[in-house]
Each structure stands twice: as structure tokens, then as C-alpha cells.
């Protein structure tokens, strides 16, 4: 068999060579196609930098420079309307079940033929605050609401930034540096009828107590004439406060205050102090009642949002007492049960 086969094998050699040649050509073609562009060299790849030369850095498109204009165009608005009225509302209801008070204080503005853009200035304890605000802010402002979000936290990656802009209509602002670009852009938004949620504390509370207010809201109001609506949010800190790994569902309360207008000649600092005092008084109103808060406001004795001056365990102890008064405390309260007397 072997001998018989030899001539036929030999006769097939040129054919095999032909096939091999074809295979090589195909392989080369595939390789040429598959060869990474970088292997092809300039101009298919980045040019090498001559020694002694430096290439200037390309401006970052992340952080405060994240482009969000597209999020205020019709397609994004349509998507956001579905997201905020559906999943966001459901999640907020499930986790924080907010009780909303003080909307009557906005009734006069709501009735105007042309409702003005507003700057909502709430205290800030939790990531849930933004969702709570989106749910609580009434129409016509809700559908034209921009949320000022920390650029370094929400816009540090493209995915996070895109999601924040799409779902929350978040706008990046720099917490550390007063960026002229951010403020100019926010002014432009306010001038074009977009309302703004801005957390004057600059970030979530690190220890459950509030922080001193920064002047962003007051500055913008002074520049644009837009009224500032002080808002107090109670309870979200203990539902999903800073440092908590997972949320503990509970109740929250949102109290809207009367719109504050910048007075002619009033400095940003003074106006900021008024906003802080108003949120402080609302905090007192949320935890006690309207009249107690009014009396204390007149006497200048509303308990500070920033908590007691002392540090350490006493501060935390006081926080627990403070929370007992508010919505956060209600989560732990037992429902009164009457004995069954048959």
C-alpha cells in the first residue's frame, strides 16, 4: 500500500505548494487587516514627541467641565420625566416617604402669569436629598429643575456624569474653587427659566449635624435677582447618611419656607446669613412647631443646624436627642397599642 501510494503523493506536491502559497497570502492579508494601527506608525498612530518638547495637556472633560447641555434638550427631558415620575418617585417613597409642608408659601409665585425661576436651598444630609427634592418641588418648577452636584463626586467619570445629568439634571459645580464658569453657566440657566437646587452646605453632613452655609445660593440670587426658597429636609440623614453602606428605610419631612429676595445693596454674606437663619428656623419648625420656631427666631434662639459647640461623644449624644424630635426618631417609635379589654 505504501509503495503504491508514493507516486501519487509525489504528484500532489506542486498542488500543495500552491495551496500553501495561497494560505500565506491570505494570512498576510488577514494580518495586514488585523495589525494594530499603532504598528503602522504615524499618521496611523500618535506621533512621538521630540526630545525636549512637551505637549500641552488637553482640557479635561470631566469634573466641573463635564458638558451637560444635552441633558436639558427635549429627548433627555422626556427620558428624565419617565425616570423621575417612575423609579425615582417609587424609590423615594419606599425609602424616605417624605411628608411635604409649606408649599402654600409658593402659591403666590405659582399664580403669576410668568412663574420666576427659583433657587431652592435645602440642608444636606444624604444622597437621597436630591431625589426627595425632585419629588417635593411642585410644578411648574419640577419639570425645569437643575441640581447643582459636586463635580468631584458625580462627574469624575463619564458614566457617572452622564447618568447624573440624565436622571437628575445634575449640573457640576466645584466645591473647592469658586469657578467662574460654573457660576456663569448657572446664571445663564436661571435667566433662561431653569430653577436650581443648590446645597449651601457644600456637601453632605459628615456627622449628622449641619454645616455652615457657603455663599453660592446667595451669590447667584444677588446676580440674577432670582428668589431663594429655603428648604429644610429632616430624616434623610438617618435613612442614608454619609458613611452608611445601605439605606435604612424611614420617614422624612420637607418644609418649604417663604421665598427670600436679595435686598438692594445687601452683600452676599449678609444674604447668605439670612438664608441660613431661614433654614434654621424651618428646622426648628419641623422639629417643634411654627409658633415655637417664630418665637425663637424673634429672640435669635433657634437651635443651630450645626449643632452644639462641643465635640466628641456629647455631640453625638445631642444628635440622638435631636433626631428623636424629628421624623428620623419616628422610625424607632413604637405605635401606641391599646389593651384589648374584650
Amino acid at each position, binding site marked *: 500500500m505504501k509503495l503504491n501510494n508514493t507516486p501519487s503523493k509525489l504528484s500532489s506536491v506542486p498542488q500543495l505548494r500552491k495551496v500553501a502559497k495561497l494560505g500565506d497570502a491570505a494570512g498576510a492579508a488577514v494580518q495586514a487587516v488585523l495589525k494594530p494601527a499603532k504598528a503602522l506608525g504615524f499618521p496611523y498612530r500618535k506621533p512621538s514627541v521630540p526630545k525636549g518638547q512637551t505637549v500641552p495637556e488637553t482640557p479635561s472633560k470631566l469634573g466641573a467641565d463635564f458638558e451637560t447641555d444635552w441633558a436639558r434638550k427635549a429627548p433627555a427631558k422626556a427620558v428624565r420625566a419617565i425616570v423621575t415620575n417612575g423609579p425615582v418617585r417609587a424609590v423615594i417613597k419606599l425609602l424616605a416617604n417624605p411628608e411635604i*409642608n409649606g408649599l402654600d*408659601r409658593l402659591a403666590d409665585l405659582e399664580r403669576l402669569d410668568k412663574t420666576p425661576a427659583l433657587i431652592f436651598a435645602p440642608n444636606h444630609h444624604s444622597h437621597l436629598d436630591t431625589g426627595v427634592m425632585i419629588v417635593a418641588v411642585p410644578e411648574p418648577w419640577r419639570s425645569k429643575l437643575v441640581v447643582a452636584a459636586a463635580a468631584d463626586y458625580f462627574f469624575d467619570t463619564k458614566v457617572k456624569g452622564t447618568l447624573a445629568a440624565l436622571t437628575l439634571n445634575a449640573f457640576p459645580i466645584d466645591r473647592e474653587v469658586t469657578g467662574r464658569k460654573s457660576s456663569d453657566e448657572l446664571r445663564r440657566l436661571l435667566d433662561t427659566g431653569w430653577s436650581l437646587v443648590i446645597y449651601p452646605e457644600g456637601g453632605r453632613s459628615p456627622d449628622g449635624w449641619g454645616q455652615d452655609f457657603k455663599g453660592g445660593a446667595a451669590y447667584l440670587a444677588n446676580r440674577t435677582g432670582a428668589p431663594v426658597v429655603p428648604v429644610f429636609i429632616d430624616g434623610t440623614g438617618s435613612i442614608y447618611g454619609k458613611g452608611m453602606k445601605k439605606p435604612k428605610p424611614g420617614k422624612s419631612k420637607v418644609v418649604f419656607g417663604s421665598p427670600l429676595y436679595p435686598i438692594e445693596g445687601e452683600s452676599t454674606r449678609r444674604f447668605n446669613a439670612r438664608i441660613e437663619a431661614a433654614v434654621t428656623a424651618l428646622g426648628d419648625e419641623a422639629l417643634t*412647631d*411654627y409658633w415655637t420656631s417664630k*418665637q425663637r427666631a*424673634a429672640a435669635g434662639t433657634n437651635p443651630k443646624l450645626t449643632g452644639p459647640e462641643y465635640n466628641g461623644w456629647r455631640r453625638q449624644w445631642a444628635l440622638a436627642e435631636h433626631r428623636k424630635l424629628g421624623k428620623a426618631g419616628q422610625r424607632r417609635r413604637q405605635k401606641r397599642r391599646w389593651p384589648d379589654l374584650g
Partner: protein
Amino acid sequence: MPRPGFVLEVDRSTPSILFWRGENFSLEKLPAGRSRVIYPPEPLDAIKDIDGAIRHALLNPIDQDPLPALLFPGMKLTIAFDDVSLPLPKMERPDNRQRVIEAVLDLVAEAGVDDVHLIAALGLHRRMHEYELRHALGDRIYDAFHSRGMLYQHDAEDHDNLAVIGTTDHGEVLEINKRAAESDLVIYVNINSVSMDGGWKSITTGLASYRCLSFHHNPETLENTRSLMGHRHHSALHTSVWRLGKVLKDHGPKIFQIETTLNTDMFPKPFEFINKREWEWTAKDRATFLGTTKALNRTPIKLARKIFHGMEGPHQMTSVQAGETEAVHKLTLEHVYKQQLVEVQGQTDILTMGIPFVSPYNPDGVMNPVLVMCMGLGYLFNMYRNKPLVREGGVIIMTHPTYRDFNPVHHPSYIDFFEQVLTDTTSPAEMSRKWEKQYAEDEWYKHLYRTGNAYHGVHPFYAWYWGAHGLQHAGKVIIVGGDAPTVRRLGFTPASTMDDAFEIASDVVGRNATITHLHVPALLVADVQ
């Protein structure tokens, strides 16, 4: 620019005119050539900065020191406010009372005043439900004051908490709420929907006892009240009230009166057509009217009532003035008349009016037959200045289903009044003599008034007396579309249609009688020359 009211002479080109029929409407064709329709002025523009205007009024009162100058730590302060009978329909939040009281409390807190009581000045009206107090005052005030016992409702039968201030030279005793009487300052917050309200009437009726009220809420006074909504000196009721006011001024606590007026923008968007002149109805208005009336014809009455009483009027504040009671009230009346006054030449033989689903005495309740009479003859008939729209001996035609239906929670004594008193007599003087005392002193009615949400036992009598002048003045009263036995019990004549009513009226005023229609909704006072 709102257009003033005017009188339309009905001719063949005039469309049918809108009439209320309780919880529904109808369009009625009025005879051409002898009918006219009085249209109210269009709603005036509301104040632009309402809260600013309130604050300005408190700081710049009329004939009195600014409010902050009247406040001092340690003082006893009472804030009294009008009850749920005003405004109609209830206004969108925030109510005038909430706005004014919040502005007052701002100043009160700044002055360091702790002893503040808020009292609903309801006289012999029913106690307000919690949701009504919340609507009038806002949740903030309710939550802060009610739980502390600092917000409550006046009780005209709580004799331990009533105090006599003095007696007028006509022997009328002024007895009012003790807390108010002993206060260093009483601030009264009013909503002046009609010119009859406000002034000294606020405190001397709202915070008064039954004994005090009986001096002027009686048939004799009300028959002699010849202009309830017009000039004070034509009104025996107001003359008596002003005498009591003088006693209050001379011997009572210091009063700081705050009065507000509203425009007549009374019905929200889907019901815009109600406030429009018929020939200005758009296709949408006509469709809404047709849809509404057809749907209401098939709607159970309880549901229809719920829909109507659930409405919140977009009416807004047109003025606010504070200070000395009489000076304030004078200005208030100017604002009320600016909104409501329409000049009308001469009286008429037949006055027609549509009776709505609500009167001051049935907010969120049933417009029972007694209240139909009160609304027609007590209120709408009295919407004039100088002389009544209908001549003496003329005919009044009302449209209302006049069902025999009562709210047993709000109007328990009305049920007995209808069954017991009206079967005996419809004469105000006679029922006053024979029956009033029994109802006024009935312990069960008192109990329901004091602890539930019932009008005082004597209230149906007062509602009837309110129409005393109308009863005495009119030659005949006809109700179109009413339940016939119920209408007859009231002493009136039932008619199935407006044409039938005109036919019946011709027996009294002849075949060519003149007809005037008072176009309500929207309020108007006819200044009859």
C-alpha cells in the same frame, strides 16, 4: 381692565340666561321687551404683593398706632377670626386668614408676647371641623396652637367663659367671650365677602352669647332692616350692632380690626363659563356647560354635592386695611362696593334668581329647604342699596330643587323646625313667640352645638328671620323645579318651569309685568335709583 357691571335689556336676540339650580344649572329664556338682567362687574385685579400689603396695613393702620406699638411682653392677646361661613366657595390656599394671622404672629413673636389665643368667632354657627380650621389657618398655625389649647372655637353657651361688657341705652346687653373681654388687645381678622359683614358686627356677633344676639336677631329688627347690604342707617340690625359696638369701644378691650376684601373670581378653571356672560361663551364653554349639566342630571346628589363643595375658588385679596374698627370698615365697604355695585334704574314687578348649592350656613353640607328660603329672601333679595329690586307686593321667583334633605350633623334643629314649626306657622313673629325659646334652650341642641358640629338650636329661626323683610315685602314667592310639598311647607308656590312661574305670577302682577334677573354667581349689589 375688568368691565363694570351693567343691566342688559332682554330682546329677541338675547340668548337664554344661566340660572343656578342647586347642584346644577339651567338656561332660561326670559321674555323679550319686558325683562332685564343685572350682570355683576368682572373680578377686580388682586393685589400683586399680598403679603407686602398685609404687612403695610399692620404697620400703617388707620386711626390707630402701628400694631408693634400695641404689643408688649406679658400682655394677653386674643386673635379672633371669621368662621367657615366665609368665603364661598372656600378659597384656594393660602386663605386670607392664614396670611393675615401669620403676618400678625411675626410681629407678635418679635414683641415677645407669649399669651396668645386664637378663637374662631362663630357665634351660633357650627364648630368648624379640623380640616376646615386647617384650610382657613394653614397647617402651621393649626399644629402649633391647637395642641396647646391656644386655638379653639367660641362657645356661646359656655356661661363661665362669657363676660358682660355693658348695656346700650336701648337696654341691649353686650356679652362676649371672656378671654376676649379680658385681653389687653383683641385683633379681629375678617373676610368681607358682602357689605353686611365686618365692622362692629364681627365681634358683637362672632364672639357673642345667645342672649346678646337675640337683641337684634329677631323678627322685629329684621323686618325693619330695610337695607342689609346698603346704607347702615336703613338697617335696624346694623343700628343695633353699632350701638353695641359703642359699648365695646367705651368699656371693652382695645380692638385692632383687620378687614380684607376679595374679588369675585369664584369658580376654578373647568367652570369658567359660570362667571361669563352667556353671549361670550366659547365652543368650549358650551361643551363644558352641556357636559356638566347632563352629567349632573345623572349624578347621585351626594356625589354632586361633594364635587361642588370640594371646589376651591381662585378669588384673591383686593384690599386689606387695619386699625380702628369704624374707619377700617368704611374703607372696606368702598372696596366691596367697587367690586359689587351696579346701578339699576327703578324697581321691577318680578325678581328672578337662581339659588346655588351653598349658602353661608351650609359649607360642606346640605342646602336644606329652610336655607333655600334664607338664601333667596335673606341674602339675594337683600343684595340692594336704597330700595329693593322688586317692588312691594311683587313676585320673587327662585330656581332650586328644594329637596327635603337635611344634614343631621350640621342641622339637627333644622329638621325639627321644618317638621314642627313650619307646619304650624311661617310667620317670623309668630314662630318667635311660640317656638323660639324652646329651641334655644333645648339641652340636646346645646350639647350638639357645644361638642359636635351642629348649628345652635335657635339657628333655623335666625335663618328664617333673615328673610323676614323679603317675606313681608313680596306678594308671592315661587320656586321653579322644587319638590312641591316641600315648597308648599315653606309657604311658597311650586312651579315646574319658568314659563309656568311667569303664568302664576301674572295673577299677582299682571300679564305685562317687568322682570329683572339677578345674575348670580358672582356677587352684586344693585344700587336701585
